[in-house]
């Protein structure tokens, strides 16, 4: 999947990086004694000076994980790092200072060029009992990026504190997330010229990721603060007090988009549209053209990371990131008379609503919203295999900020795609000869079932053969299954469905013992590995998309055999998931019908047992075989 981001404000990346890095943590080998952030805001003649003073002290309880001594601080064109002081306090009372800091760049698979850099250093002489002490200043050049403070992190934290000190003519907004079980002590103080807000917590346990879980921001206790507005000469000047402020800032950036030399773009749009009569067909054709002709390449360079590149240049260069493609679609569609708008949106990794925290923290992506026959359709040029009319999977359920005019916007949720739109229809015919199974199978995939298959097929298989890819992703029969005559229909976005077909030879699958031959028709055991470990699992289970699977498996009874045992039908309808399996014998054949559906994007903690009941019943149903005898 081509996930794309318009611009990661650095603090988010820092958080993610810490969490990735963090995943090396295991038990209490390392802990933070304190993590403090003190923000001071000064305002003079409308110019903000924002400085974060960061102080962290960490203790090496054991010598097992000395690699935590490697520190990496990120910065970009919106932030500067200054006065880095890093010291190790040894158990014998001595101290050793960091005397070497290296500035580095990183290559990132998703972002081709980024202005983000890192300061790297290693705390010297760390060992069991050592305490490291890190202080530095982060100078923030744009008042829209005040950021986020996390109360909990990858290692246990004895004490975490955020303070913000600001002149009385400034108003601050803030909102806590996931602090229900982490009592936050909040105080407000007043000095002569300023207010001081303080949030502090004690003894926060560590957080580690889980398989198939939502992004860390869905459960990590944290707070987002933002400057709402300030007063100057009796006038209130807004910064980010509500979504209107956020949008007018975005709109001011969007105004800077280069709108020159659009003739060529218009020509292309016209020539595509001229081949179609309805708006829907025109829009679809233009979308498919962008899908097929513009390759995703992302640059993040200062505010350039927020301003789409001109449609003319994207068209000429044939590459762009999400905002470039969104803008190109916006230009092309409007030109052929289809009302379209640029829309800011957070991918499913971002848990926020715009009204909750009207800041750039909410979004990380841009798409196009187009209105056809009173229908709002969200289109995303970054996911090359999504069909027109389908949102990209990672934007489902998310709130889009749709810019109507430079002054006017609307908020609208991207719908989730109904399960019947993401379908796998599987037809299999099985015969049994010389102790082995021969089968012909065809899979007709639509919606995200198609998108997922294509992405995996094109990119994940990289170094493995087609057969091995199918064997590991579909896992049909057993791992001795041979796939032959593999055929895959064209994958591009203009094709509404994908057909994959192949022949299977499965050895060691049928058991013939004495006179009985035992055959299990469930060669596809979808979801059988999806049981949740209820005892240890902490966070909700994320499901990428809703889906349905429909199987028809036809087994030709070999000559001279008769069926002596046929499993009874089983149906299960759970909360938002279920299945039905039945067998019938007809005209010398046994036909198995099987349907499975999942109608949710998330399994909440209170539903873990219900989900497990579903999976367990399914596994049990998969165990039922047919028996044939001579």
């Amino acid at each position, binding site marked *: 999947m081509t996930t794309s981001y318009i611009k990661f404000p650095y603090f988010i990346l820092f958080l993610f990086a810490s969490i990735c890095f963090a995943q090396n943590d295991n038990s209490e080998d390392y802990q933070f004694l304190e993590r403090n952030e003190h923000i001071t805001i000064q305002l003079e003649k409308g110019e903000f000076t924002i400085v974060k003073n960061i102080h962290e002290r960490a203790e090496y309880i054991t010598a097992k994980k000395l690699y935590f001594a490697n520190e990496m601080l990120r910065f970009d064109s919106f932030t500067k790092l200054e006065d880095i002081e890093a010291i190790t306090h040894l158990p014998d009372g001595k101290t050793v200072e960091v005397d070497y800091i290296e500035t580095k760049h990183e290559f990132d698979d998703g972002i081709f060029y980024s202005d983000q850099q890192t300061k790297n250093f290693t705390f*010297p002489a760390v060992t069991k009992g050592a305490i490291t002490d890190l202080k530095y200043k982060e100078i923030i050049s744009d008042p829209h990026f005040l950021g986020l403070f996390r109360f909990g992190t990858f290692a246990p934290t004895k004490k975490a504190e955020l303070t913000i000190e600001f002149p009385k003519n400034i108003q601050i907004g803030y909102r806590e997330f996931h602090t229900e079980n982490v009592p936050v002590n909040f105080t407000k103080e007043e000095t002569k010229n300023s207010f001081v807000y303080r949030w502090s917590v004690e003894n926060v346990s560590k957080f580690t990721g889980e398989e198939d879980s939502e992004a860390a921001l869905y459960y990590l206790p944290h707070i987002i603060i933002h400057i709402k507005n300030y007063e100057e000469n009796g006038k209130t000047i807004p910064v980010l007090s509500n979504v209107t402020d956020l949008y007018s800032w975005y709109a001011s950036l969007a105004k800077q988009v280069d709108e020159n030399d659009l003739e060529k773009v218009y020509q292309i749009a016209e020539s595509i549209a001229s081949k179609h009569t309805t708006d829907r067909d025109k829009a679809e054709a233009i979308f498919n053209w962008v899908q097929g002709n513009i390759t995703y390449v992302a640059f993040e360079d200062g505010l350039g990371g927020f301003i789409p590149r001109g449609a003319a240049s994207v068209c000429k260069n044939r590459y762009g990131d999400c905002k470039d493609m969104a803008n190109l679609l916006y230009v092309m569609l409007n030109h052929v008379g289809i009302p379209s708008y640029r829309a800011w949106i957070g991918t499913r990794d971002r848990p926020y609503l715009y009204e909750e925290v009207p800041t750039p923290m909410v979004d990380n992506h841009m798409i196009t919203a187009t209105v056809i026959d009173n229908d709002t359709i969200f289109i995303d040029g970054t996911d090359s295999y999504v069909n027109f009319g389908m949102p990209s999977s990672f934007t489902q359920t998310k709130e889009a900020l749709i810019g109507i005019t430079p002054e006017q916007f609307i908020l609208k949720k991207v719908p989730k795609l109904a399960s019947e739109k993401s379908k796998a229809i599987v037809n299999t015919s099985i015969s049994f000869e010389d102790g082995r199974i021969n089968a012909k199978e065809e899979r007709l995939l639509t919606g995200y079932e198609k998108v997922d298959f294509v992405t995996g097929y094109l990119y994940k298989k990289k170094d493995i053969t087609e057969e091995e890819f199918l064997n590991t992703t579909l896992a049909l029969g057993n791992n001795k299954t041979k796939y032959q005559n593999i055929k895959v229909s064209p994958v591009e976005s203009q094709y509404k469905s994908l057909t994959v077909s192949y022949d299977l030879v499965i050895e060691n699958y049928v058991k013939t013992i004495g006179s009985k031959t035992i055959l299990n028709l469930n060669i596809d055991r979808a979801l059988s590995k999806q049981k949740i470990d209820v005892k240890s699992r902490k966070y909700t289970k994320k499901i990428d998309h809703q889906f349905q699977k429909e199987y028809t498996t036809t087994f030709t009874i070999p000559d001279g055999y008769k069926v002596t045992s046929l499993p009874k039908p089983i149906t299960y309808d759970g909360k938002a998931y279920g299945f039905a399996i039945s067998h019938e014998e007809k005209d010398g054949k046994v036909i198995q019908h099987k349907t499975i559906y999942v109608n949710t994007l998330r399994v909440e903690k209170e539903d873990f047992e219900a989900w497990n009941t579903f999976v367990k019943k399914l596994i049990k149903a998969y165990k039922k075989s047919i028996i044939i005898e001579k």
Partner: protein
Amino acid sequence: MRTVIVILLCLCSTQAFSQYYKDYDWEKSPKLHKLSEQDANKSSIAIIEKYIIEYYQSELSDAIRKFETNHSITRVHDEKGIKMHNRVYIPMYNVKDIVSIKARTISPDGKVTLLNKDNIKEVKNVEEYGDFKIFAIEGAQKDSEIEVLYTLEKQYSAFGRQTLQQDYPIKTLEYHFITGDLEGRIKPYNTTGNFEKKTYNDRAGLQLILNDVIPMVEEEYSTADANKSVVAYQCFGQKGVTDSLLWNNVVSNISEGMFPETPNAAVKDLVAEILKGQKEDDFTKAYLIDDYIKKNYTVIDNNNAQLSNIDYILKNKSASDLGIVKVYGHFLTAADVEYLPLITANVYQQKLDPEFFNPNSLREFLIYIPKTGNYITPDRIDYRLSEIPFYILGNNAMYISKKLEFSFYKTALSDPDYSRVVRNMDISFEDELEAATIVQQQEYYGYWSITNRAVLNLAPDQSIKEFEDYLTGSGIEDKVVKSYTTKNKDIAQLEYNKPFIVNSEITSESLLEEAGDSYIFQVGKVIGTQSELYQETKRVNPILMQYPNQYDYEITVTIPDGYEVEGLESLLIKKELLDEEGKQKCKFESNYTLEGNKLTITIQEFYKVSEYDIAEYDEFRNVINAASDFNKAAILMNPKE
């Protein structure tokens, strides 16, 4: 990891011809190339990939200049192909001057889009690779050709290495090595092609032309990266530079400080403390020192030159991969333990060639303790004094003695039976035959125990969870773990090859399938998911197992009262690969005995050697896949009549 830099004096010689690269250019009016139908079906294919390495010494100066030209034309046919080639990264490591960088795209209708040079971005100090110039190819669409041509002047270095084989097919690959009157040598690896003499503007050189270079296939049990086609070269300003001279030069450059005459005084005291009351053999002493250093020092990879200065290191407890060897030098000398540092390379990346000096292959520093036959791996926190790490095993290494003499040896195990897995399982069935209970004891030796300990001590929680799943029986999807305990889990285990032990009890319903009144027991599944070697196409790489190893399993099944078993023949499997003398190089063998209601299954699988010839592949694969065959074994339990 930094390569060892060799400094050589360059003596004067004269040349009077102009450089070849100056006249080299791309076609003025490019046209799309004709491709066969087969080539047109690939995501992308390089039509030409050309490297020109030119050493040049002018009449006016003693200095040798080095120029590198790269020229490629690539056809891209689909989105995957475009994505593979539309982002260009040019390393600026050692670059003195950018002579030129240009790129263009020729679209299917013949339109040419030239790269706007303002769009070339500079990226500084990327990870350990240095600076880069990067740009995105403009105008690339399906079925267009992407052409990139650049020439860089590099700092003079006598050596170079280039991987020729890529992840995409190449129709024609040309390598031009121009040295004029200078003394140059070039050696191709893993290719049937040879260099031939050629003159370039009257300057002497060598050229290699390869046609239809296929991408390297990633195969299991192979060192695919190390098997790619590569060239390595040398070019000197003086005559008579031999490989032996070059190796000697390395030894004198890096050995400084590795063999201290007298160890640092503080280290001496520390060593006395570490070894107090301990046994006095070299193994114990070296082990305790290794453990101490791993718990107190960090190995760092950055550009801080101080990290190889012993005083700085002892104060900051931070060292480069070379610097840390010096620390070991002081500690081992203080403990009076004999040692030999060695330099080598990761066998999965490249094979060290003692016959052709190439500083690029000197990447891993280790320490050999001759009295014990074991190795210290200074930069790996998951290793302690033991056998050589498996990723070095089988590569050539340069061992350096205290007298600063060096010898090359192929690294090997001192104990060929180092890595073993022993498993004992007791299987019984609950009432009503609803579920099977498996009580299991496992002992892991050698590399197995190193890996297991590393994961359980150092990996993220999530990976530990997955690993515990593997340790209690992978592939049993509805498994319920009743108990799980481990022994000897700590990374530090002073006893040589002390096993890592896992005891567990699980139950599973899915192992029992119903078939009328009978039950099918999927006994094969209890050994966990086994890897299966697929091979649709002809094997390309010879076989390298990570290391020799052996498995001994004993599975006891208690058949429930009132039932009798059928179908035991699926438990009998024997596959083997014999050497010329008829001795087993590797095998898989499973047997059973049935006494009363006790069914005892024994499995032995071993790989006595880790390297196998490509001709042995089919038999090797049969042995590997035999475990996967056993994985499918099932027995039928019928009610007694």
